[in-house]
């Protein structure tokens, strides 16, 4: 081999050493990802596999045999709840997505709005509504049906709440998948003599199978990771893994067992995520299209169209019922007993919970822009630069998608509860947790945008005399603005509604609205919880409106890059 021969990686490093700012940023990012994403997970593994400083499976055998297999039951419950939520949620989402993209039903904009509302709500709104509608004093169970001993707790209530909370996630994926299937394929099938049912079974459905599999896996991971709904609804008769891990730590203070439960929760989540990301998503069909063509859009018969319309109306009705009950509950004097309208719930919330509103806003307001910028920078580095640790940076920054919040929360307590990283009870631990937890959205959005930007556009800037800093600031960043702001909106919503990891990290000094709402639910103050939730959703809507208006005003001349 020639002496002057330089291999790609070393060459990359040599090039980087000429750019100390870039090198510094890369090293700092790699260290942060290592410390705040990998290290807490490592701690969960270490603690769960260790007894008296030695490697052991004892924690796991203890956990599995505990109280006649109570935790084994929790694992089983979590898994089948995940499978059920994934199947039903994906099924409903597919009907919704198909109706909206293919069936040409009336009111498509309205249905689309309905399906996206649950995304901006805290994840336990479903649970709250289930209690308000189907519980002992539930509107439907008690007022409408006149039952006096209804029980909303347990598998049925939880499944209902989870499907309602997570089907929108699948809907968004499946809508994208169905939109990318050219209607001309269906026209072609019809032209070749297929009837409408055959076309659906032989063309549309097979083409959407990878999308369906992908959404189902995502819902499975979401359901396993869900904490808010099971904490409210699962109850002692129907243990759920994420809640049990939480109770083991905060209730019993048993870190080893808690870590073992967290590890058990981690395995199926990460497996499903890896399956989704590295296998199913690669199977996605790419429809090769020439010029956009007009489709006759008559793949759905009139009868089927009206059937789909009725189904969509039914789903929309349920979603509206949920939110109407939250609004009504917030203004009702005493839910189920006295429906007299009052503001006393809001007065109560401002009296006991105003501090948590400020805290939540502070934390979300600080972590969101940092997560957004970091996400863009990481996306840029991962897509455009060559350096050692690039793969690691990509993998670790996306890992939070796969890891249930409960596991992250437990990892943070284990990792940052003592020297050298003593952060418990501080604002910093909440900020750091939120930043690194909601990083993946920014990274994902940024990567998607960058992959669409022809690298020669950046080369052109360099060619005209810009260094890497100026190229990023003057060319790349402006082109990433839309992705940046949509990641801002997403991480703000997530920060405002986060609970599963955050519940481990709140303190007397720093409180979160979500955790406060939970404690209101637990102490039976449903009205206060509803009012609190309403305020939370209102803040999110205002923030989204502000960001979107700002975007429209500032970039109105450039509507083309904001189109997607």
């Amino acid at each position, binding site marked *: 081999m*020639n002496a*002057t*021969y*330089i291999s790609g990686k070393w060459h990359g490093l040599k*090039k980087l050493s000429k750019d100390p700012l870039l090198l510094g940023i890369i090293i700092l990012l790699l260290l942060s990802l290592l410390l705040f994403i990998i290290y807490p997970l490592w701690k969960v593994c270490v603690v769960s596999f260790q007894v008296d400083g030695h490697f052991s499976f004892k924690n796991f055998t203890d956990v599995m045999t505990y109280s006649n297999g109570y935790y084994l039951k929790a694992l089983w419950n979590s898994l089948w709840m995940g499978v059920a939520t994934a199947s039903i949620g994906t099924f409903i989402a597919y009907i919704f997505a198909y109706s909206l993209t293919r069936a040409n039903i009336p009111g498509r904009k309205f249905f689309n709005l309905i399906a996206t509302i649950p995304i901006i709500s805290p994840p336990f709104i479903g649970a709250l509504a289930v209690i308000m509608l189907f519980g002992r004093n539930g509107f439907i169970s008690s007022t409408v049906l006149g039952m006096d001993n209804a029980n909303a707790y347990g598998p049925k209530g939880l499944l209902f709440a989870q499907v309602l909370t997570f089907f929108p996630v699948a809907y968004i994926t499946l809508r994208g998948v169905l939109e990318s299937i050219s209607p001309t394929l269906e026209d072609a099938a019809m032209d070749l003599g297929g009837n409408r049912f055959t076309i659906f079974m032989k063309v549309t459905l097979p083409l959407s199978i990878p999308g369906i599999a992908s959404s189902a896996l995502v819902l499975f991971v979401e359901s396993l990771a869900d904490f808010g709904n099971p904490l409210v609804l699962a109850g002692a008769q129907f243990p759920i893994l994420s809640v049990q891990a939480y109770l083991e730590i905060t209730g019993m203070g048993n870190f080893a067992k808690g870590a073992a439960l967290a590890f058990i929760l981690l395995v199926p989540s990460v497996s499903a995520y890896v399956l989704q990301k590295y296998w199913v998503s690669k199977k996605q069909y790419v429809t090769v299209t020439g010029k956009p063509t007009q489709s006759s859009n008559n793949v759905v018969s009139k009868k089927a169209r009206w059937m789909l319309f009725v189904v969509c109306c039914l789903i929309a009705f349920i979603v509206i019922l949920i939110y109407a009950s939250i609004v009504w509950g917030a203004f009702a004097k005493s839910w189920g007993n006295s429906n007299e309208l009052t503001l006393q719930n809001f007065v109560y919330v401002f009296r006991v919970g105003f501090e948590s509103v400020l805290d939540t806003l502070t934390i979300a307001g600080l972590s969101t822009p940092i997560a957004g910028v970091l996400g863009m920078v990481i996306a840029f580095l991962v897509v455009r630069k060559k350096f050692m640790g690039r793969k690691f940076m990509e993998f670790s920054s996306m890992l939070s998608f796969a890891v249930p919040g409960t596991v992250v929360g437990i990892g943070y307590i284990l990792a940052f509860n003592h020297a050298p990283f003593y952060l418990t009870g501080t604002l910093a631990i909440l900020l750091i947790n939120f930043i690194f937890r909601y990083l993946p959205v920014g990274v994902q959005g940024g990567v998607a945008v960058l992959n669409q930007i022809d690298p020669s556009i950046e080369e052109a800037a*360099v060619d005209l*005399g*810009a260094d890497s800093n100026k190229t990023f600031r003057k060319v790349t960043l402006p082109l990433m603005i839309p992705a940046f702001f949509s990641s801002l909106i997403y991480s703000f919503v997530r920060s405002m509604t986060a609970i599963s990891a955050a519940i481990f990290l709140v303190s007397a000094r720093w409180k979160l609205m979500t955790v406060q709402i939970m404690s209101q639910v637990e102490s039976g103050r449903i009205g206060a919880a509803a009012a609190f939730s309403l305020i939370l959703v209102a803040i999110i809507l205002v923030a989204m409106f502000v960001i979107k208006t700002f975007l429209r005003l500032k970039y109105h001349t450039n509507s*083309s890059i904001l189109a997607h």
Partner: protein
Amino acid sequence: MSVTLVNVTKIFTDHDDKNKEFTAVDNVNIEIKEGEMVTFLGPSGCGKTTTLRIISGFEQQTKGDVYIDGELVNDLPANKRNSSMVFQSYAIFPHLTVAGNIGFGLELKGMKKAEIQVEVDKIMQTMGLSALGSRQPSQLSGGQQQRVALARAIVNKPRVLLFDEPLSNLDAKLRDQMRTEIRRIQQTFGITSIYVTHDQAEAMTVSDRIMVMDKGIIQQLGTPFEIYSRPTNHFVADFIGRANFFSGTVTKLDTEVTLLVNKKEYTFSSFNKDVKKGKSGTIVIRPEGLRITDPSPDAFYNGKVSHAVYLGATMEYEIQVKGKIEPIVAISYNPVLEGFHKVGDEVGISFDSVSAHVIC
């Protein structure tokens, strides 16, 4: 400003298998004179674009030196080389207006806004873009985008102008028009230019000299006439235009060369230096260099027309000769005068020795 490459070599390593290597550019030496326009021509994967990117600084050569205007620029990053590239995709900044795009490089140099305006206006006028200054790139046609890309490159007064297959995204008619215009502008400004293309007609139109590459190696470097009429090897002759090859044995070699082909001897004054007496040699004759006659024992070859295409201005024939696998291609430039031949006609083929060139 001159550009000189000395022993430039680029080896790529496979990402997954570090032992797998690919030599994209193999020991390239060339000196491009001030104000000259040189085209790197070759099939895809021949190393022409990599060579261009090494000159621009986007790729680092594994071995060898690059000089721009006598200055060794090996360690100079792309943004400091003062070369300007016109990209295949144009690479117009989608978030800037036409004027913003053109003024981008001047702005980076720290030029004052008013001065930038003057320079941008001037170049837009030259390029016929005057009315488009405030347009968004998405509102431009392909030809206009091409002009903006060229204006953006030229306005910086670069030491060398680099073109990376700039016309491949345009339709045929616009392509013909733009290549003439690029040549006109290059000559007006007198900028040393390097032009990468796989289209030989484009190379012929714009270049002072053409560097034909294949498998990372320079196959021939010469004027368009030399490349077409005096190809140094089979690859160049075959890649540039169409060519008929007739192999024979060299029987005599002094200032002229004599070959024994098809049991007859022919003498040529145009031949390559590597042709040796007693060894085999190949006669290269372009289709327009062949004449179709009636069959005769004196003819170079006799054969049967296997294919005849009427193109209006010309008539193209393929003639199948006994014992020769490849049909002979001949073009008649005035079919009405020279007469038409049908498929199946027996014909003879002859040529003037000046239309032929001998390679080894």
